[in-house]
């Protein structure tokens, strides 16, 4: 047998339904993550459309307050927790192992588990929306409104548990990515040769790890207050409503950067490829990413300027919020410099990056105005803020993401996306976006608060709102074009080949789509731009075992080969554990007993997950081959 056949057999992707549920490789899970996240994106987008219909004209009776409040809550929650963060992590799951030259992501079974937990959480939220049981207290559900006294029933509990779902999933992925980036890099990939996208994913993972525990704490307190009558947020018994805001925003602000930093990595990759030059100021860009990651934790209070905290403190947070504009500025300048120096090829991915710069800079500048305490006191919680964060989130994250989709689609599917459709798609989205969200600045300055289900006719807000609603129509068309282009290209698109863009990073050094074992010979990196600097007699890693899922573990700093580890194969138990976890989470909305009782099956599933040769491992394995694999593992 050739090496390829042996690897094919060892790294098999299991077949059959059970196989589908037990698959444990980063490409499959990454793709599922992407598709699922985009599905939630569409759902939340439809909800946004409904809101724009309601707000198109004053005193509209299309939606009542009850339904409208559910819709905007689910829209925000779903976009933040079920689309933005997971989709960025999905890109990391799929691309990082390829970019660092590994055969798989670290802890692949944990990866499977996290996907199914994420899926169950998302399905739960969609179900609540369809069953008129959706949370209706805003995506940061402030207490006491979200507390037991003012939101009877289970609506807010579903919000709190959705947080738990998504955080469990996100934290697991963050740990995998950190381990992958630190220990599974190809030999020779020293710290200063790590691709910028991988750097951004690393920073994002660390931010996830340090930010999310805060919101888990906050939402668990909320759940306990509602279910078992604790008093964390009850001012009459020594609790404090503001505590929730602190806990939430200590997570909530880094959250924005968790979403936005991987996008910056995509921008850098795309600019490098489409200028065919090394990016300008690699070190500066890396340091900027890290600085953003740190400062991002220092400015949560700028969401609470109106709560009457001590003035001096507020000014500190003004300063901090303004300081974070500096690393962003540095990156913008570096990208502009790269574009100036290089020879830009104006294809769809680069267009989206240019759109990103135009939109994001405006959003960033309106962010600077928001950081100023006095001005924020006026525009806080108005449509000005709505405009601002859509500029930074859609402009700053979704545009690069779509650019990234156009860029990496060939690698993932093996087929190119249509460039002409792509260009039109870009124009429609760009115009649609600005027509939708730019007028919101003015609506806010004219005194329109956010989260209003309707507004009086005599406030002068009618025109701006109508324009926004019309722009939303364009956005819908743009989204449809994107889907159309993805589907048609997937079916009939031009075959891509290994490296259609002549890009520099390792993922383009293997076939498109990559084989189950990623690289026939694990690559060795000789420069920052692995493929551009690859010599004819480029060294490769040899001596690795082909008959078991062995991977090379390298040193954190200089990427020197250090030792070898064997990855576990596919198994059903992560899926089972995820299902039991979900049952426990949802059950604990109704009774606290779900926690002690629910943990038992979870524990059993986990034990079988880790138990060598437990039944359920190697499901869907090619029969005749499955034996030697097991022997190899036992030896």
């Amino acid at each position, binding site marked *: 047998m050739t090496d390829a056949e042996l690897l094919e057999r060892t790294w098999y992707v299991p077949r059959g339904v059970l196989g589908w549920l037990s698959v444990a490789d980063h490409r499959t899970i990454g793709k599922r993550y992407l598709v699922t996240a985009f599905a939630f994106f569409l759902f939340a987008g439809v909800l946004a459309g409904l809101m724009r219909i309601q707000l198109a004209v004053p005193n509209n009776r299309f939606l009542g307050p009850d339904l409208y409040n559910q819709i905007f809550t689910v829209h925000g929650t779903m976009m933040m927790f079920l689309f933005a963060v997971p989709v960025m992590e999905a890109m990391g799951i799929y691309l990082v192992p390829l970019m660092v030259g590994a055969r798989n992501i670290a802890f692949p079974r944990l990866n499977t588990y996290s996907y199914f937990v994420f899926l169950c959480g998302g399905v739960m939220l969609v179900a609540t929306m369809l069953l008129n049981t959706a949370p209706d207290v805003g995506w940061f559900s402030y207490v006491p409104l979200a507390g037991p006294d003012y939101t009877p029933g289970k609506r807010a509990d579903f919000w709190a548990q959705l947080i738990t779902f998504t955080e469990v999933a996100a934290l697991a992925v963050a740990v995998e990515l950190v381990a992958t980036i630190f220990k599974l890099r190809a030999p020779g990939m020293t710290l200063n040769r790590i691709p910028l996208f991988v750097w951004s994913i690393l920073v994002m993972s660390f931010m996830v790890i340090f930010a999310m525990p805060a919101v888990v704490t906050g939402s668990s307190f909320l759940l306990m207050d509602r279910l078992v009558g604790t008093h964390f947020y009850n001012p009459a018994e020594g609790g404090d409503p503001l505590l929730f805001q602190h806990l939430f925003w200590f997570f909530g602000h880094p959250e924005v950067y968790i979403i936005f930093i991987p996008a910056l990595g995509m921008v850098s990759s795309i600019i490098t490829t489409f200028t065919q030059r090394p990016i300008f100021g690699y070190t500066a860009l890396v340091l900027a990413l890290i600085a953003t990651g740190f400062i991002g934790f220092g400015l949560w209070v700028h969401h609470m300027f109106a709560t009457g905290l001590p003035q001096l403190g507020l000014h500190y947070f003004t300063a901090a919020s303004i300081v974070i504009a500096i690393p962003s500025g540095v990156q913008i300048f570096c990208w502009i410099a790269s574009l100036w120096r290089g020879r830009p090829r104006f294809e769809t991915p680069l267009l989206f990056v240019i759109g990103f710069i135009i939109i994001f800079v405006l959003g960033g500048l309106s962010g600077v105005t928001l950081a100023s305490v006095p001005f924020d006191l006026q525009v806080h919680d108005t449509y000005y803020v709505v405009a601002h964060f859509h500029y930074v989130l859609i402009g700053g994250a979704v545009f690069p993401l779509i650019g990234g989709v156009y860029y990496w689609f060939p690698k993932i599917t093996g087929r190119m996306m249509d460039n002409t459709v792509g260009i039109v798609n870009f124009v429609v989205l760009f115009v649609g976006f600005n027509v939708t969200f730019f007028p919101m600045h003015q609506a806010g300055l*004219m005194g329109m608060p956010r989260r209003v289900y309707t507004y009086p006719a005599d406030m002068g807000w009618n025109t701006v709102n109508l324009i926004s609603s019309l722009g939303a129509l364009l956005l819908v068309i743009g989204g449809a074009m994107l889907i159309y282009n993805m589907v048609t290209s997937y079916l009939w698109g031009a075959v891509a080949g290994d490296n259609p863009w002549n890009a520099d990073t390792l993922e383009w050094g293997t076939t498109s789509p990559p084989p189950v074992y990623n690289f026939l010979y694990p690559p060795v990196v000789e420069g920052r731009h692995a493929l551009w600097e690859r010599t004819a007699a480029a060294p490769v890693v040899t001596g690795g075992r082909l008959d078991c899922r062995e991977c090379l573990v390298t040193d954190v700093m200089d990427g020197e080969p250090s030792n070898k580890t064997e990855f576990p194969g596919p198994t059903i138990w992560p899926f089972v554990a995820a299902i039991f976890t979900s049952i426990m989470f949802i059950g604990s909305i109704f009774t606290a007993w779900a926690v002690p009782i629910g943990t038992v099956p979870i524990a059993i599933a986990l034990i079988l997950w880790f138990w060598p040769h437990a039944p359920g491992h190697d499901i869907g394995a090619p029969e005749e081959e499955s034996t030697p694999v097991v022997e190899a593992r036992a030896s």
Partner: protein
Amino acid sequence: MIVRALLLVAAAAAAGCSGNQNVFNPAGPAARDIASLGWQLFIVCGAVYLLTLLALAWALARRRVPSDDTVETTASLTRTVTIATVLSIVILIGITISSVVHGRGLTSPSGPGAITLDAIGHQWWWEFQYRDLTPSDFVTSPNELHIPVGVPIQIKAMSRDVIHSFWVPNLHGKRDLIPGQVTNFWIQADTPGVYRGQCAEFCGHQHANMAFTVVAEPMDKFQQWIRAQRQPAAEPVNAEQARGQEVFLQGPCVMCHTIRGTSAGSRVGPELTHVGSRLTIAAGTLPNTRGHLGGWVLDSQSVKPGNRMPPNALTSDDLQAVLSYLRSLR
């Protein structure tokens, strides 16, 4: 984009001349201060945005020359980027200082506070209480805040249920009303007029319609108003009004509403002692006309779904009687 940015400034300016509840239509020192800061910010940020876009356009459109890859080019680029960074740092420091300077005035009033009053947020209406040395002279004015012009008004704000936010854009930025806390702030109007305020923190079903009116008037007129408010409710002067009062006092109304001088003394809903004198009803949602009042009393839920006023099935002549009675409470 640039064009649109300019359009915004223009539009905001245009709107600035008109438009109640407009941030750029200040009628008090605090709002004026913030508005001027806002203009500063817009001009500076606008300029920065313009420059960035120009740089981008140049970078994309310029003709490429062989010397692009030389070390010198890179060095000069590095210099440019460094300068740009330093410049933006300077600008940002400027913005910080300016916002701190503007911020100082907002915390404490410029002059001695003439009036001290409590602002209490309820789901979904406002209660303004004018304290006085003699408790009998306390005045409660739901959803309508009367203030004298030219003097700072000290406000002690609190909430009875969830978090609300007190916001009169023409006078000042917003301030949250947080249960279990008393927040002190101040507002001041310089030009007489009627300004609209609105709850700015999401507070449930009727957050959208939780508005109130601020009536800023010269001191003497204000004193007049408060003297009038101190009086107990007007007695019925004709048979229909008397009938209306009877219906009111025998009916469900007394369970929630107060009319000073009668047996109606519940503090659950807005006080109605001088309801006839108000500009709006239903928390700044409806003009205070007989028709709207009638519709509100009969079936408030179809006007503001989820609000706390129950539907009241009154026979038509009972309703007419109640209306004439309420309208007579001036």
